[in-house]
């Protein structure tokens, strides 16, 4: 699992970056009754063994889809998103090393979780889906923080 994978990293700075844009981003979310990361069922049910794979897949989800699909005109918000995106890139590189050492195995349960999230994303128009996923970053960050705390050496 992630226990030996996610090198300790300053999550506080990423969370601070998100808090700086949370209100503005969530205000643009016009589908309040729909969720993509679905707090309760999806992430919370993940077992320690699957944490590394799910983290890697969700980092890819945000980098390949969310950050790319979101067009941000406001430079201040753009800076914060860029800071988060580049931190995610660094985290992904870190997990890459784990993968090469075969310590980031993807079981079907982990793949299912990622599939659900991609399916939720595809249900919405792409800009709306990107804004909603951006607004739910705190769910993902909290999940990383919790799983990293339990697993840091």
């Amino acid at each position, binding site marked *: 699992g992630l226990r030996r994978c996610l090198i300790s990293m300053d999550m506080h700075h990423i969370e601070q970056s998100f808090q700086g844009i949370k209100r503005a981003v969530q205000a643009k979310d016009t589908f309040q009754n729909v969720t993509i990361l679905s707090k309760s069922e999806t992430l919370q049910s993940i077992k320690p063994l699957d944490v590394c794979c799910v983290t890697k897949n969700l980092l890819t989800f945000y980098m*390949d889809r969310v950050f790319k699909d979101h067009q941000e005109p406001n*430079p201040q918000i753009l800076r914060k998103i860029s800071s988060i*995106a*580049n*931190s995610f*890139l660094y985290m992904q590189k870190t997990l890459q090393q784990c993968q090469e050492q075969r310590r980031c195995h993807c079981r079907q349960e982990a793949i299912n979780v990622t599939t659900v999230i991609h399916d939720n994303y595809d249900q919405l128009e792409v800009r709306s889906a990107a804004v909603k996923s951006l607004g739910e970053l705190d769910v993902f960050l909290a999940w990383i923080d919790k799983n990293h705390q339990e697993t840091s050496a």
Partner: protein
Amino acid sequence: AGALAAPQNLSVHSTNLKHLLRWSPVVVPGGTVSYSVEYQGEYESLYASHIWIPSSRCSPAVGPECDVTDDITANVQYNLRVRATLGSQTSAWSTLEHPFHRNSTILTPPGLDVTKDGFHLVIELEDLGPQFEFLVFYWRRESGAKEQVKTVRRGGIPVHLETMEPGAPYCVKAQTFAKAIGRHSAFSQADCVEVQGEALPLAL
């Protein structure tokens, strides 16, 4: 008048995770040239290479220098570019030849003030901000003495290390630890102090 010249000789000077982008000024007799600085993290260069982000402090900048510390926030490569503006004229962009990574920052040994307050060994370290911790080593300078280590989370405040006894000096040295990049500085020069007089009365 010909096109406005683009800034030249871009370079980043980075010390203790403070990053300054510098370039040669564009000189136009009788004119006041200003500059715009933009950056692009490795994410943008890989996934959205058309995206450049205005620097948080220097759009515009009046002198040939820009503090990009707040823009360089992750352990990845950053591209930086500058252009000059004079009235309605704008130069081409000049881009930093090699991307910058904050891992390359120069870490200097911390400023260290070693004092005695009565029999107490007290130090104060240079305040380098929240990104830094300090490793402090101290020992009683006599044969067989053991070196002690203490982690100090913040500079700029007095820290009590030890209650000293007369008869030998106490020495201290320190190094910084940059948490964001996981690197230490070199050690500061060791500094020693000694207390005179009788040893402390034993508590009865």
